[in-house]
């Protein structure tokens, strides 16, 4: 057929018409709605869209247009990274992978009708729903603190403006002042996070404010990578950091944001900066969907399906899954298992046994990086640890530098795995 100009225009018009009528063209196409665009949700959206090559409609609901990764936000506080370097947008997920990115809050889930209501009024239907909302804080977890105090006593445990605020407060501390942290009880997002945070604060203070002190009130008797951190604190910040664990009253804490005081086991201390990281629970939407037991959403490790509703998969920090720590790496790993299971259920693609892994890198001081990691498999009861490793105390500077450089490579890797 000879295509003349007129015919070409006509063909173009037909294509345009079909694009403007997706409900007709897309009828019968399975729909996946993903709530939360972090390490779990963004990865799941990308892998479902990429793997199904358009056979599944993927909608990602995420209120933030710019996403700041929690991982590496401590490095921003220390000045090792620019804030812009941990900021990501969703443009590539939309343009390259065809994910329908909706910047709105999910405010309700009707599990019988299989719909998600958005704050803006829209309603989204799904065949499978992926919930990856991260964490919220447990009300009243730290007496004296609630979200209205988060400007005076920031948590900085959801990255972005809170990280900027905490950084500014640390830099404005008077000479010889006191930085206090109220650490969270288990389980919580990023087990080494509070202690990397303290290391990074100490790094700033050592340069700008060497007579300042750091006090950590901790409701736990021990913490992740404890030997590594304590060795590092001794090497780099001797005498600056005072960790008060639960054996010494660190679990009996009250704060007063107006007076800027912290009471630890009855002893009141005036502080200049107070970083309160309260106890955590699954992002509120999980509770609203009625898929939580206690503070978390129980899931099957084989598919990351909710144990309460098989049409819902839950990822990352919000889950109760077994042995994996709550980390961005874990969420990313779980997202791939869920994406495979969802594609298998909706389009019949091949399904393989679930495998998971995690590695958490932490920075103690300039080029002094450490890591801990493990592999996992799904059993009927839980996600169970298979094998693991941890950095050793007394490692040489070259190895620690290599570990840090590896963490920089990992950051580039996981963010391109999430956002494309």
């Amino acid at each position, binding site marked *: 057929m000879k295509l003349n100009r007129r015919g070409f225009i006509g063909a173009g018009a037909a294509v345009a018409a079909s694009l403007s009528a997706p409900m007709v063209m897309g009828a019968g196409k399975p729909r996946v709605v993903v709530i939360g665009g972090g390490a779990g949700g963004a990865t799941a959206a990308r892998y479902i869209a990429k793997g199904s090559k358009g056979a599944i409609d993927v909608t990602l609901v995420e209120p933030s247009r710019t996403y700041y990764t929690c991982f590496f936000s401590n490095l921003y506080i220390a000045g090792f990274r620019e804030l812009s370097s941990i900021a990501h947008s969703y443009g590539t997920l939309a343009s390259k992978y065809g994910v329908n990115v909706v910047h709105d809050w999910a405010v309700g889930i009707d599990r019988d009708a299989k719909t998600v209501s958005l704050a803006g009024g829209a309603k989204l239907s799904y065949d499978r729903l992926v919930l990856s909302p991260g964490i919220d804080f447990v009300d009243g977890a730290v007496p004296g603190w609630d979200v209205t105090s988060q400007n005076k006593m920031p948590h900085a445990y959801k990255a972005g403006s809170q990280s900027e605020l905490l950084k500014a407060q640390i830099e404005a501390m008077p000479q010889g002042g006191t930085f206090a942290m109220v650490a969270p009880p288990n389980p919580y997002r990023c087990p080494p996070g509070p202690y990397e945070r303290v290391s990074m604060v100490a790094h700033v203070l050592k340069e700008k404010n060497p007579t300042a002190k750091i006090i950590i009130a901790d409701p736990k008797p021990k913490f992740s990578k404890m030997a590594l951190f304590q060795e590092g604190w001794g090497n780099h910040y001797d005498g600056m950091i005072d960790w008060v664990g639960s054996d010494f009253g660190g679990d009996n804490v009250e704060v007063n944001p107006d007076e800027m005081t912290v009471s630890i086991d009855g002893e009141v201390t005036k502080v200049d900066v107070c970083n309160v990281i309260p106890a955590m629970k699954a992002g509120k939407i999980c509770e609203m969907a009625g898929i939580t037991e206690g503070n978390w959403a129980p899931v099957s490790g084989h598919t990351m399906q909710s144990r309460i509703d098989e049409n819902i998969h839950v990822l990352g920090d919000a889950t109760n899954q077994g042995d994996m720590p709550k980390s961005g790496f874990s969420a990313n790993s779980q997202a791939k298992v869920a994406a495979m299971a969802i594609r298998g259920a909706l389009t019949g693609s091949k399904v393989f046994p679930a495998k998971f892994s995690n590695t958490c890198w932490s920075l103690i001081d300039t080029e002094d990086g450490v890591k801990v990691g493990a592999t996992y498999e799904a059993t009927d009861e839980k996600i169970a640890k298979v094998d693991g490793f941890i*950095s050793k105390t007394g490692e040489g500077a070259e190895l620690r530098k290599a570990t840090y450089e590896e963490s920089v490579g990992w950051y580039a890797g*996981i963010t391109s795995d999430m956002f494309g």
Partner: protein
Amino acid sequence: MRLGGVVIAVWAALSGAAFAEESATAIGDPERGAKMFKRCQSCHQVGLGGKHKVGPHLNGIFFRPAAAFDDYKYSKGMYAAREAGLVWDVDGLGNFLEAPKATVPGTKMSFRGMKKEQDRNDLLAYLRTFSDNPQDIPEAAPTARKVEVELAPEILAIVGDPDYGEYLSTECTTCHQTDGAYDGIPSIVQWPTEDFVIAMHAYKIKQREHPVMQMMAGRLSDEEIAALAAYFGNLE
């Protein structure tokens, strides 16, 4: 030093007057350079029978234009460098070794760079012993190159399932980037199958040092390693 001096003298005689001035002074210490080359040899071969592996072989590299082999697939960045006229002379190689990513943006060489000038010079002196007569490469002396892991032929013969490899690869791509970019973690795309399989088995039996990789490889079966090699080997 003595070896280097002899080779350079021969090379100067063969290649005429054009480079005589340069060759009159040794670049560096080739014996020390042979030790530096250990950092390169997991990807590059040089010497008698040298073949393309993860990286191209380095026989006769001096004064060759960048991306010159037809039977090796370079990065787009390296082809662009060739277009721009990059030639592997002492300066070209030296700059590239010092800062690979800055010199050839997009190169898939996963090497952070060799910061000390003396190290680079010694390495180049060593490499130049394999460039004495670029027309007759295999005449250069062979380098001892031990096989990392002796694998049974049936393991090497396994034909991997790339679909399974694609699923398994999702565990790798949390750190290793699928476009081959290197920001601190090496590229693993487009490796020859055998190199990939041998490297993974070397991690699996903890012969290669790296706790994460030992752990990841530790639970992979022979078929799974072959599947990953098949998938990543053909990833564009």
